[in-house]
C-alpha cells in the first residue's frame, strides 16, 4: 500500500494564493496511514530565470560536501553555469544555464562518484526523503515551492529497499521533467526493463515503479501525446497500478485493468486535486463537492 496525490492550479489567481508544496504536504500528511517509509514530491511549473533545475543527492554522509562539490564541477565540465545552489545535508539543488544536450549533462552527473541524480527539469524538481511528508516539510521547506502542478507519494515499501534512492517520485533519466508516483506492483518489470535497456535506456534504481517513468518518456520521445503514452502503458505494464505522471505541461493518471488501486479526483474552476483517498482531497477542499473515481483501464490528463 502507498498513497499518491496530484495537484494542478488552473489559473494565476489560484497560483498566487496557494503553494503546491504546502497543499501536497497537507494531502500526503492525511494519508500517512498508507505509508511512512518515505515521502516524495515533484513540484512542477516553477518560474525560474535559468534553463534547468538539477536535484542531486549522495549517500555518503561523511563526505557529502565534497561529493556535492564534485557534482557542481561535473556540471561546469560539460559547459553548464551554476547560477544558484542550495544544499541541505546530503541534498543539493542547483539552477543552471546550459545550452548543450540534457543526456550529456545527465551522463556527466551520473558518472560523478557518489552522486545520485533525483531530477533534471526545465521547470520541475523532485524532492524525496525518508520519513513522513510533515518531516520533509520541516527539513526541505516544501511550503516555499509554488509552481503550477505537482505529484506526491507516501511509501509503504513492497518491492525494493527502504531508502532515499527507492523513494518516489521516479524521474525518467535523462528526460527533463518526466516523473512518476505509483501505487501497486509491476510483475513484468524485469522483462520490460531488459527491453528498454536494450533500446539504450538507463535505470538508476531497482524499483519497479521507475520503469513507468522511463516507459512513458520513451513513448513520448517517439511522438506520442501524454494521453496516448498513458493508454499504451495500460497494456505494456502488467500487474496492479494506479499511477500519476508529472510533465512540463501538466499531470496525468492511469489505472490498471483490475481497478485494484484507488484514486479519486475533485475538480473546481481553480484546481484539480487527485489522491488515493478522499480524506486527502478534503485537506484542499473543505466543502462537499462531487468527485470522480476513474474506473479500470482509464487514463486522464490535465494541462496547465
Amino acid at each position: 500500500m502507498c498513497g499518491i496525490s496530484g495537484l494542478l492550479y488552473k489559473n494565476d489567481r489560484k497560483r498566487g494564493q496557494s503553494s503546491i508544496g504546502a497543499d501536497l504536504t497537507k494531502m500526503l500528511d492525511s494519508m500517512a496511514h498508507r505509508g511512512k517509509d518515505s515521502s516524495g514530491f515533484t513540484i512542477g511549473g516553477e518560474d525560474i530565470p535559468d534553463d534547468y533545475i538539477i536535484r542531486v543527492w549522495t549517500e555518503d554522509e561523511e563526505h557529502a560536501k565534497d561529493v556535492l562539490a564534485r557534482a557542481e564541477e561535473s556540471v561546469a565540465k560539460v559547459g553548464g553555469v551554476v547560477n544558484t545552489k542550495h544544499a541541505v545535508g546530503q541534498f543539493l539543488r542547483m539552477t543552471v544555464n546550459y545550452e548543450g544536450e540534457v543526456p550529456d549533462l545527465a551522463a556527466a552527473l551520473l558518472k560523478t562518484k557518489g552522486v545520485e541524480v533525483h531530477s533534471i527539469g526545465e521547470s520541475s524538481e523532485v524532492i524525496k526523503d525518508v520519513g513522513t511528508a510533515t518531516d520533509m516539510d520541516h527539513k526541505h521547506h516544501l511550503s516555499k515551492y509554488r509552481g503550477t502542478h505537482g505529484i506526491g507519494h507516501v511509501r509503504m515499501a513492497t518491492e525494493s529497499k527502504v531508502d532515499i534512492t527507492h523513494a518516489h517520485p521516479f524521474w525518467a533519466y535523462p528526460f527533463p521533467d518526466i516523473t512518476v508516483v505509483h501505487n501497486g506492483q509491476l510483475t513484468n518489470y524485469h522483462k520490460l526493463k531488459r527491453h528498454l535497456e536494450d533500446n539504450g535506456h538507463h535505470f538508476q534504481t531497482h524499483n519497479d515503479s521507475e520503469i513507468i517513468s522511463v516507459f512513458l518518456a520513451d513513448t513520448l520521445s517517439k511522438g506520442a501525446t501524454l494521453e496516448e503514452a498513458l493508454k499504451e502503458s495500460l497494456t505494456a505494464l502488467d500487474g496492479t497500478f494506479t499511477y500519476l505522471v508529472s510533465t512540463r505541461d501538466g499531470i496525468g493518471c492511469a489505472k490498471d485493468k483490475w481497478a485494484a488501486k484507488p484514486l479519486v479526483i475533485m475538480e473546481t474552476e481553480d484546481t484539480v486535486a487527485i489522491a488515493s483517498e478522499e480524506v486527502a482531497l478534503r485537506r484542499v477542499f473543505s466543502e462537499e463537492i462531487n468527485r470522480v473515481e476513474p474506473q479500470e483501464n482509464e487514463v486522464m490528463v490535465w494541462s496547465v
Partner: protein
Amino acid sequence: MVSLDASKMTVTEVNQAIKTAAKKGEEITVLNPQAQHNIAVCVLEKCKIDIKGSVGYYSASLLDGPDVVIEGNAGWAMGENLMSGKITLKKDAGASVGASMRGGEIVIGGNAGARAGIAMKGGTMIVRGNTGFLTGFMMQKGNIIVCGDVGEAVGDSMYEGVIYVGGKIGSLGADAKVEVPSEGELISIWNELERNGITEKPRFKKVVSEKKFYHLDKLERMEKTVL
C-alpha cells in the same frame, strides 16, 4: 438527539459516542466527517444515524440494525458485512461497496466503483447510477439492482442471487448469463425503487449464474458410489 462533531474528536471517540447513544435509542447526527475512515462501524442496535458529509473506507460497516444516512460520498468497502438495517448513501460509493453483506439494504444515490457487492450473501443493494468492473463478483445470495450501466465481467463466478441491470452491460463474467425477468419481477423491483424515491422504471435485464462451474451442492464421486 446526539450531535457529534467528527472534526473535533478522534474516529474512536466518534464510534464510542455513537454506540453509547445507540444503546439509549437516541437519534445521532455526525457533523464534519471529512471523508475519514471507519465512521459508524459495528453498531448493533436499531437506531438512526445521520452523517452530514462524506466518509472514508469501511464506514458504516459491520452493522446489525441501524438506519444510516450518509449525505456525501463513501470510500472503499462501505457497508461491508451488513447484517440488517439500511444504509442510504446520497452520492458515490468507492470500490467493494457492501462486500460480504448478509442482509439489510444499501441504497446508493450515485455511482459505485469496482466489485460492488463482492461475495454478497444476502440483502439488497440498489445503485441509482452505474457500477464498475466485476459487479457482484462471487456473490452467493441477495439482489443487486443497478439502474444504470454495469462495467466489464458482471456476475463473474457468482453462485446464487440476481443482478438486475437497467442500462448497458459491459460484458458478462465467467459463468454468468442474462435472463429476461418476468413482469411480476419487474413490478416488484419498480415498487422497491419507488419506496426509495427512485421513480425511473427501466426494463431491467437479469444476470444470474449459469451454474456450469457450480459444484457446491453436488455429491463427490465417492459419495455417489456409497449411495
